[in-house]
C-alpha cells in the first residue's frame, strides 16, 4: 500500500483549538499544504488577525506575527514594503477585514499591495461568542441580532469582495467555499494562485472563503456545511470576481 495522503508537513502536530467542523481548520491545512508544495516556507511571513484564527501561528509552521484587530492589511503592507522579498500572507476573518479593517483593506487593495490575502467569511464573530458580522445574512440570528438581521436596522450583508473588485490595483479575487470536496479542491487552487500572483509581482490578490461556524450558527456540523452551500452562496455567490491574469496560470 502506498501512502496517498499525509498530514501536511507544515501543520504543527497539534489538535486545532477550533470547534469540530470549523472551516478555519480546513483552510489552515490548505495554506500549509500550498506553502509546502510551492516550497516557499523560507520566505513566507504570515500576519495573524484577531478572532478564531488568532492562533494561526500555532498551526502553520512559517514565520508569523500577531496584528491588532483589523490592521492586518496595514501591517502586511509595512512588512512587504520594507522587505519585498518576503512572501506575505495576510489571514483575516470577516470582522477583521470588513468591519474594523475596512479602510486598511480597501487602501491596500487600491495601492495594489503585493500581498496574499485569505479572507475567511463565516458570517459571524466566532471568537467573541457569535455576534453579528458585516457579512451576516438577512434574517440570520446572532447574539447581537437576536431577532434576525433586519436591513432597516443593521443594513445588508457587506459585499466587500465585489467592492474591492472595482479597484484597479486588484488583480485577482475569487470566492470559494470549503464545505465540499470540490469546494476544498477549488479553494486550494485559488490559494495557490493568490500566492503566485504575489510572487510574480502583479498586484493585490485575495481569496474569500465561505466557512462554516457550526457552534455560533447553532447547527450540527454537517448542517452548517450544507448551510454554506445552500444559503450563504445566495448572498455570496461563488466564483471569480476579478481576474486580470488572463492565460498566465492556465495549466
Amino acid at each position, binding site marked *: 500500500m502506498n501512502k496517498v495522503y*499525509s498530514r*501536511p508537513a507544515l501543520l504543527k502536530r497539534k*489538535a486545532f483549538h477550533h470547534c469540530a467542523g470549523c472551516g478555519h*481548520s480546513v483552510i489552515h491545512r490548505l495554506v500549509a499544504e500550498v506553502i509546502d508544495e510551492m516550497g516557499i516556507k523560507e520566505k513566507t511571513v504570515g500576519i495573524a488577525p484577531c478572532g478564531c484564527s488568532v492562533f494561526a501561528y500555532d498551526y502553520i509552521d512559517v514565520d508569523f506575527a500577531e496584528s491588532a484587530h483589523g490592521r492586518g492589511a496595514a501591517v502586511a503592507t509595512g512588512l512587504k514594503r520594507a522587505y519585498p522579498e518576503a512572501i506575505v500572507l495576510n489571514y483575516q476573518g470577516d470582522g477583521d477585514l470588513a468591519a474594523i479593517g475596512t479602510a486598511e483593506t480597501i487602501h491596500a487593495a487600491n495601492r495594489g499591495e503585493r500581498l496574499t490575502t485569505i479572507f475567511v467569511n463565516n458570517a459571524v464573530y466566532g471568537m467573541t461568542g457569535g455576534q453579528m458580522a458585516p457579512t451576516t445574512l438577512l434574517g440570520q440570528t446572532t447574539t447581537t441580532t437576536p431577532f434576525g438581521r433586519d436591513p432597516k436596522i443593521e443594513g445588508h450583508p457587506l459585499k466587500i469582495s465585489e467592492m474591492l473588485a472595482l479597484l484597479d490595483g486588484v488583480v485577482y479575487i475569487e470566492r470559494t467555499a470549503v464545505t465540499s470536496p470540490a469546494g476544498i479542491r477549488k479553494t486550494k487552487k485559488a490559494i495557490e494562485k493568490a500566492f503566485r500572483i504575489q510572487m510574480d509581482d502583479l498586484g493585490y490578490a485575495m481569496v474569500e472563503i465561505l466557512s462554516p461556524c457550526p457552534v455560533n450558527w447553532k447547527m450540527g456540523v*454537517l448542517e452548517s456545511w450544507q448551510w454554506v452551500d445552500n444559503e450563504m452562496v445566495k448572498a455570496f455567490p461563488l466564483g471569480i470576481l476579478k481576474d486580470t491574469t488572463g492565460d498566465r496560470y492556465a495549466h
Partner: protein
Amino acid sequence: MAAKGYIEIDQVICKGCEICIAFCPKKSMSVSDKINAAGYFPVVFNDGSECTGCAICAIVCPEAAIEVYRE
C-alpha cells in the same frame, strides 16, 4: 476493478465531527464508542470496508487527522 485502500484516523485529534462519514462514498467509517481524552467520540475505519483510497475523507477532514493508503 477498484483499487483497495485503507485509512488511519488519529484518535487523539479527531473531534468526531463526522464530516468524513457524510462524504465517504463507501461507508467506510463509523463513530467509535470509546471517548477520547478531549471528550470526543472519534471516527474509526471499518475494517473490511470497500475503501478505494479516494482520500475524500482526508480532504474534508478539518483536523487533518486522516492519512490514506492505496494499492
